[in-house]
């Protein structure tokens, strides 16, 4: 279980995250939503140990998060890869790092589910579209069956149809393999459709923790309501007639 307890992050005098606490069980999905600059990506960086919180504790099963071999899907698809390596080499890095092997069947299944022709993996990152690079990023994150996956805007470069297919693939795999998923997203429709719980962040603080139903229908805080209404105005959430 991922446990984040009273975590604060400061950058100079600026408070980026303030007293953040939550837990995430294996097999569950937690979505973190909020405005740009709310601290969502900083939270991911803190969980992975890329930066050190000024206070609080972050642990996976009582040990450091890094020790469990977490995976990350980065926000900028192309810059997530070494431009000098083929995508295949980059995709296999988590496997090599864990000294394990991956069956061809698993690779093919993931490629098929992500609608990635196998030959794409022979290319370099700059030779594929942004949408393809984003899906290769998801492939790399899931290839070694990690226990914890952190998704930072994982579907932002995909078209609407591919978004839905990809989200379903991730959910199906999660059901089979039981990984815990933390999804940072601006796409509130995605969060409501797939998360077990939603955290609303504003200016580095937790504004509300809600189930998807509560967030969509009866959000408690004013800011959550503003977010929900914005999602409806953008067509990300549809009110049925």
């Amino acid at each position, binding site marked *: 279980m991922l446990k984040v307890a009273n975590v604060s992050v400061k950058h100079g005098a600026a408070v980026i995250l303030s007293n953040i606490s939550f837990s995430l069980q294996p097999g569950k999905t937690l979505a973190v939503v909020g405005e740009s600059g709310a601290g969502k990506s900083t939270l991911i960086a803190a969980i992975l140990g890329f930066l050190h919180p000024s206070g609080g504790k972050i642990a996976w099963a009582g040990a450091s998060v890094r020790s469990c071999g977490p995976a990350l899907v980065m926000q900028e698809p192309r810059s997530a890869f070494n431009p000098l390596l083929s995508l295949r080499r980059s995709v296999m890095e988590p496997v090599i790092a864990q000294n394990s092997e991956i069956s061809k069947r698993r690779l093919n299944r993931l490629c098929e589910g992500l609608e990635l022709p196998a030959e794409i993996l022979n290319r370099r990152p700059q030779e594929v579209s942004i*949408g393809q690079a984003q899906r290769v990023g998801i492939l790399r994150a899931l290839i070694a069956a990690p226990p914890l996956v952190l998704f930072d805007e994982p579907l932002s470069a995909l078209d609407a*149809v591919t978004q839905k297919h990809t989200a379903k693939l991730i959910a199906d795999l999660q059901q089979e393999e039981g990984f815990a998923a933390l999804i940072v997203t601006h796409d509130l429709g995605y969060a409501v459709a797939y998360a077990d719980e939603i955290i609303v962040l504003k200016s580095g603080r937790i504004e509300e923790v809600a189930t998807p139903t509560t967030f*969509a229908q009866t959000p408690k805080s004013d800011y959550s309501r503003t*977010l929900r209404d914005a999602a409806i105005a*953008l067509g990300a959430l549809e009110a049925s007639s």
Partner: protein
Amino acid sequence: MRQSLLNDTLTVSGLSVARSGRTILHPTSLEISPGDRIGLVGSSGSGKSTLGHALVDDFRAQGKRVTHVPQSPDEALDPLRSMAFQWREAEQALGLQPGSADQKTLFSTLNIEGSDLRRRPWGWSRGMQQRFVISMALMGTPDLIVLDEPTSALDPVVAAATMDLLDRHLGSGNIAMMLITHDLGLAARRVSRLMVMEDGRIVECASTKELLQRPQASASKALVAHRSWVELPC
């Protein structure tokens, strides 16, 4: 390839684009009337942005005033020039007096008020750059505004405010708008006519209501089926 200026209707016929010997936009003809609200939708790689770019170039060559919000602000902003310079340049391009555009209101609505215009684009975040480009597109009264995924880099609250600002700006006036997006849910709320693209062709064009209720082309059916993530009970 082109004809127009018969009246205020923007017209292109036989517009096509080829790159490296490959046709990426098949001959396309369309008319845009003053005040039209058109959504150009389709999957990634269907040719939406290519058609958008081709229309902007063609209409400008016809002497029409067209503003364009490209998908990436990198395409719109000169990295060597300050934001203030780019604002003045846009005013000049639209024939406006320097300082006459209502920068304060636009910046305030787009939540970039107080930003340092002396900086160059890379001194601003990507979302702020995107909003700056949108504000430049809204500063005058062009014949057509082409917006290519205008809200993709914005958070939901700012994105919704941006679309509302756009609605208010267009009002019931004569400025035509083409919204290019893969998101049918977004387009459905903002446009009166939808064009669906697939493999470099417009495969269906219908009123928004008609297309949502009775999509004909397979690409349209897929988009309608994947229109939103969830429906909320009223």
